[in-house]
């Protein structure tokens, strides 16, 4: 499939998962993680209104700057680092091919 990208995800046990995500379905990273049954809650459904999809971006892909809402919500997350993001706020697009993600502890 040409309209998809590959994403590497390290879960909380340290297991690496290689995921394929379509770029033409306006998905966000949280939705992709959930679709692959990774342990991400996404309680609020992707509105940046909870902190249950907190992850670390380990690769240096260029990402949109976190909105104030996202920053506010990261205040409710734990072990927040400079590379912390709410995965629901990361839109799946071609330029993110090869993205390296680690799930944050809960």
């Amino acid at each position, binding site marked *: 499939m040409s309209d998809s990208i590959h994403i590497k995800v390290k879960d909380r046990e340290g297991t690496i998962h290689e995921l394929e995500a379509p770029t033409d379905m306006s998905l966000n990273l949280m939705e992709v993680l959930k679709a692959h049954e990774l342990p991400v809650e996404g*309680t*609020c*459904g992707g*509105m940046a*209104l*909870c*902190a*249950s999809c907190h992850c670390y971006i380990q690769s240096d892909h260029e990402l949109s700057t976190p909105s104030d809402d996202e*920053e*506010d919500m*990261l*205040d*409710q*997350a*734990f*072990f*927040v680092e400079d590379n912390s993001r709410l995965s629901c706020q990361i839109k799946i697009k071609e330029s993110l091919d090869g993205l390296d993600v680690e799930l944050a*502890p*809960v």
Partner: protein
Amino acid sequence: MIKTDILIIGAGPCGLFTVFEAGLLKLNCHLVDVLPAPGGQLTEIYPKKPIYDIPGYPSVLAGELVDNLMEQIAPFKPGFTLGEKAASLEKTGDKEFTLTTDKGTIIKAPVIAIAGGLGVFTPRKPPLEGLEKYEDNGVDYMVKDPEKYRGKNILIAGGGDSALDWTIELASVAKKISLVHRRTSFRGALDSVDKVMELAKAGKIDLLTESQATQLNGADHLESVTIKHKEKGNLDIPVDYFIPLFGLTPKLGPIAEWGLNIERSAVEVNTEDYSTNVPGIYAIGDINTYKGKLKLILCGFHEGTMMVQSAFKYIYPDQKLSFKYTTVTGVEGFTNE
């Protein structure tokens, strides 16, 4: 002791609308919710967000939808037990369940409708090692009685309203209060932020920004909390109490122990009437699961509507239920109860 026809656990949109549909069948309802106000997620998580898929409303704010539902069900005089968690449920007779809340309120009903959404909103706990060991032993997730902290060393963590408000409140009570927050800016109400900044400037509180709690220390009870500053590294803060305030998160809670068939934190139901495997107990809205389930308010309304028809037949097996349109009969409210 409270008696009702349908005891609804969860006062979110689905539970609220069920009161209306039950009222049309002359069934009384009582709702229990752990949150202090009705509306569930809509009130707690996103009151100011617009919802676009409620039929007839091109756009409605979540909080507005809750207000409207409250107005719509008012004629049926539902009872509310708010701020209490449905703790235990027992079958205490033929067509009688007895529910006891965590505060000891007892409610009896022939029918239970679980409309618990994603579960009970409980404080979000930081994933710190040994946390359980210090619970009620130095770690508190909420402030029940400020007097408990008189003359003590307190560390509060968080950046929202509750962290700010309790820092202000406890500043005059505690011996020493420190507030740890991962950023330099706060998301709480502006005047609370200003007040906290003033207290810090006046040396009345210790404000530790760009820092996060990373470790709890102490042999039998909590003695200190290790804070990691973004640049300066680790700092040990001696404390009597650590109060992490990171908001609420839903957990399935006691429902899991009521003998219901549960699949991945959701209650399995029969889509004919949203009944569970236990006769008299139904599950509607986000808390249930079935083939093709969609977690939509819209679907929850449908489920509650179907459910009360079945509940009526369960409570009054010998009575005939005739279906009426509200356009024909109007809404005849309850006069007493």
